[in-house]
C-alpha cells in the first residue's frame, strides 16, 4: 500500500502536486468568495485552447534533444507575419467568397496558417542548423536568439510598408500598431465554431469546441508523428545521440527537423492565440511568451530532456487555469493591484529553475 502511494507520488512529482493542490485551493476559494466559478471555468477552457499549440511546440524540440525551445519567438514572429499578410491582402473579404463572412474568415485563417507555417519551417531549418553548432548550450543561446529576433522584427514592423487600415496607425505614427484588431478577418472563427453552452445560455459554461478540437487535432498529429518512423528516430536522437548514431540515424538532421517542427507549431500557435484573443499583439508583447510555454510543459511533467503530449495537455490546463482563477481570488484577498503577472513570473520561472536543477546538466559533479 505504502509502495503504491510512493509510486503514484513519484509518477506525479512534487511540483505538479503542489500546483494541483494550489489550483484546487484557489478554485475552492473562488467558490468561497461567491465568485462566478462557472464563468471562470469557461475562461480556463478558452485559455487552454489559446495557449495549447504554443506549448505543444515544446515537444518536438525537447524530444529531438534541443531542450525546451526558449526561442519559440522565432516561430511566433513568423506567425505574426503570416497573419499580417493575411490582413493586408484582406483575404477575408475577397470577392470570390461572395460576401460569405464565415468562409472568408476560415480562408483568411487558413491562408495565415499555411503561409506562416511555410515561412516558419524554413526559418526553423536555419535555426536548427545554428542549434546544432551550439550543442550543450542550446537553452542559453535560444533564449537570446529569441530575444534578438523579437528586437529585429520590431525594426521591421516599424519599417514595412503596410497599407491596410487595420494595421496602420489611424493618424500619423510609423509602421504597424501595437495591437491589431482581427475583427475584420479571423477573430474568434475557431472559438465560435460548434461552440455550445452548458446550462443557462447567459451564465452557463461556454465551451469553445472548435478551438479545443483544433488543439487536440494538432496534439493527435504530433502524437501520430512520434509513432511514425521519423518520429521514433527523432526521439532516439534526443534520448541517446550516440546510440542513435550507431543505429544509422542522422542525429543532426533529426535535430534540425525537430526544431523546424517546433518553430512551425509556434507560428500556428500564435495565430490560434490571436484568433481567440481577437487581437494580434506586436512588438515586445511576445518577448516572454517562450518562458510561459516552457513553464507550462514543465508543469505538465516534462523534463528538459523528455516530453509527452499528455504533459502539454495537463500542463497548459494547470498553468493557465491557475492564472485565470487565481487572479480574481487574489484581487479579492489582497485588494488593489494586479497579482496575476507577478504570480506568472514566480510560478513559471520557479518551475523552470526546478527543472534545471533536476536536469542532467546539473548532474555532472566531479566532487
Amino acid at each position, binding site marked *: 500500500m505504502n509502495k503504491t502511494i510512493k509510486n503514484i507520488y513519484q509518477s506525479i512529482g512534487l511540483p505538479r502536486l503542489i500546483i494541483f493542490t494550489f489550483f484546487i485551493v484557489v478554485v475552492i476559494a473562488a467558490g468561497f468568495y461567491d465568485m462566478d466559478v462557472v464563468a471562470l471555468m469557461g475562461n480556463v477552457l478558452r485559455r487552454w485552447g489559446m495557449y495549447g499549440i504554443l506549448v505543444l511546440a515544446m515537444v518536438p524540440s525537447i524530444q529531438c534533444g534541443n531542450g525546451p525551445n*526558449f526561442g519559440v519567438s522565432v516561430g511566433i514572429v513568423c506567425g505574426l507575419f503570416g497573419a499580417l499578410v493575411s490582413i493586408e491582402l484582406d483575404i477575408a473579404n475577397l470577392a470570390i467568397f461572395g460576401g460569405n463572412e464565415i468562409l472568408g474568415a476560415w480562408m483568411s485563417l487558413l491562408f495565415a496558417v499555411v503561409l506562416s507555417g511555410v515561412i516558419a519551417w524554413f526559418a526553423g531549418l536555419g535555426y536548427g542548423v*545554428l542549434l546544432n*553548432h*551550439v*550543442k*550543450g*548550450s542550446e*537553452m*542559453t*543561446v535560444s*533564449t*537570446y*536568439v529569441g*530575444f*534578438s529576433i*523579437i*528586437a*529585429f522584427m*520590431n*525594426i521591421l514592423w*516599424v*519599417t514595412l510598408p503596410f497599407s491596410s487600415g487595420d494595421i496602420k496607425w489611424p493618424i500619423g505614427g*510609423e*509602421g504597424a500598431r501595437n495591437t491589431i484588431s482581427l475583427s475584420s478577418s479571423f477573430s474568434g472563427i475557431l472559438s465560435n465554431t460548434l461552440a455550445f453552452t452548458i446550462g443557462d445560455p447567459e451564465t452557463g459554461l461556454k465551451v469553445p469546441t472548435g478551438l479545443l478540437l483544433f488543439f487536440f487535432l494538432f496534439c493527435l498529429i504530433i502524437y501520430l508523428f512520434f509513432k511514425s518512423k521519423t518520429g521514433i528516430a527523432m526521439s532516439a536522437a534526443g534520448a541517446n545521440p550516440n546510440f542513435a548514431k550507431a543505429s544509422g540515424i542522422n542525429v543532426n538532421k533529426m535535430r534540425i527537423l525537430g526544431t523546424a517542427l517546433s518553430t512551425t507549431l509556434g507560428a500556428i500557435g500564435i495565430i490560434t492565440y490571436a484568433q481567440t484573443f481577437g487581437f494580434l499583439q506586436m512588438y515586445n508583447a511576445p518577448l*516572454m511568451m517562450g*518562458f510561459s510555454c516552457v513553464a507550462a510543459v514543465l508543469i505538465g511533467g516534462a523534463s528538459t530532456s523528455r516530453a509527452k503530449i499528455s504533459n502539454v495537455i495537463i500542463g497548459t490546463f494547470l498553468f493557465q487555469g491557475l492564472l485565470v482563477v487565481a487572479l480574481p481570488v487574489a484581487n479579492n484577498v*489582497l485588494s*488593489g*493591484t494586479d*497579482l496575476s*503577472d*507577478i*504570480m*506568472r*513570473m*514566480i510560478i513559471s*520561472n*520557479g518551475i*523552470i*529553475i526546478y527543472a*534545471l*536543477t533536476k*536536469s542532467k*546538466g*546539473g548532474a*555532472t*559533479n*566531479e*566532487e
Partner: protein
Amino acid sequence: MKNNFFTYTKKQSSNFIKNIYSNKVVLMFLILCIFGISTTGKPLTYTFSEVFSRFGRNAFLVLALIVPVIAGLGLNFGIVVGAIAAQIAIFFVVYWGFTGIGGLLLCVLICTPIAILFGYFVGVLYNKTKGSEMITGMVMAFFADGLYQFFFLFILGGIIPIKSDTLMIDGGVGVKNTIDLTGNLKYSLDNISMLILGRTILIIGFIIVLANLIIHKNNEGKKGNLLRLILIVALFGFTFLPFVSQFMGTDQLLLLDAVTIACILGIVYGLARIIYIKLIKKDKDGDINRFIAIIIVAIISYGLTYVPAIYAITKFVKLPVCTYATVILLCGFNRWLLSTRLGQNLRTVGQSRTVANSAGINVNKTRIIAMCISTVLAAWGQIIYLQNLGTFSTYGAHTMVGQYAIAALLVGGASVQKANSKHAILGVILFHTLFVVAPFSASNLFGSSLIGEYFRVFICFGVIAVSLAMHAWKTAIKPTAAKENK
C-alpha cells in the same frame, strides 16, 4: 637602445592591431560607433559628455561581472539579484529620511549583508546546475524580479507597516512606481569633493602603513614604510595649501584638467621608474621601453588636447571625480584579488573543476564566494547608478541591469571564459556611445527615432546571442577542450 625601443613599439602596435583584428566584435562596434557619431547631427561635445556621464554610471556594474567569468561561472545574469538588494536598501534609507553621503553609506551598510545572503543562495543554485549556469541565472533573474515585485507591492505596507504619502500608493499598500531621489541620495557620491576624497584616501593609507609598521617589527622594509609615511604626511600637508585646496574643493573635474593631471602623473611615473632602474639599481638590462612608451603616449595625449575639436570637448565635459575614483579602485581590487590565494583558486576552478578538486580546492565553496563578491559589487554598482540617475523607478530599474552590463562587457571583447577590466572599460565606452547615438542617427538617416530605439535593443540582445553562440560553437568544435572547461 633606440633600435630596441623601435622594435618594442613595432611589436606592441602589431600586437594591438592583431588583437583588434582577431576581436571582430570590438572592430565591428568601433566602426558602428564611428559611423553613428558622424551621422548624429549633434555636436561632439554633447555625445561625449553623455558618454562620460553614462560611463561613470555603468562601469561599476560591468566590472562586477568579471569575477564570475574568471571562476568559470560564465556571464552572471544573476547580478540583477545584487541590484535588487541595493534597491531594498535604498528604499528603506529614503523612507527613514537619511540624506547625503551618510545615507549613501547607510545604503552600502544595509545592502552588503543582503547581497551576501542573496549571492550565497545564487551560488548554491549555480552549484546545483553546473554547466548551465547562464540559463539558470537568466531564469533566476526573472524569478527574483517576481519575488521583488511581490515584496514591494504587497509586503511593504501590507505586512510591514510603512507610513509615507510620498513613497506609497494611495491606500498604503505597495510602493509607487518611481521614487524621486532628488534632495536625499541624488549625486551623494558624485558631489563629494576631491579634497575630502583625497584626504580620506591619505588617512586610510596612513593607518595601513602605520599598522604595517607596528605589526611587522622586523627591520625589513622598515625604511620603505617610514618613507611612505613621510610622503603621506607631506601630501596631506600639501592639500592644505590654499591654491590646492581651492582647486580640489570642487566635485567635478574638467576633462582637460583630468587629462593634464593624468599626463603629468604618467610622465612623472615613467621618469621615476627609468631613474630607479637606470640610476639607483644600475640595472643595464632593465627593461625601460614600457616606461618610455608611457611617457610618449602621455605627451602625445597632452598634445592632442590642443587640437581645436578635442579641446572643445575637454573644455565641456566634467567628470564626477568620486564616482570615477570608485571605478578605478574597483579595477585595482579586481587585479589585487586575482593575485591573492583566493584569486588563484578562482582561476583554477575556472580552468578546470576536476583539477581544482584534486588540488584540494573546495570547488563549491569557491564558486559561492565568487558569486557573493559579484553580487555585492553589483549591489554597490546599482547604488552608484541610481544616485547618479536621481530617479529610482521601483519596478524597472533592475530589470535590464544584467542584459546591458553583459552586452557591454561582450562588446569590449570579453567572452564567456575570458574577461578583464580592460574589456569592461572599452566595452562600456563603445556600448554606451552606440546607445547615445543610435536614436539620433536613425532619425537622421531614416526619419524615425523609433528605429534607433529598437536597433539599440536589437544590438544589445544580438551581441549577447552572437557571442554566446560563438562560444558554444567553439567549444562544440573542440569537444575535448569543452570537457576540460566544464
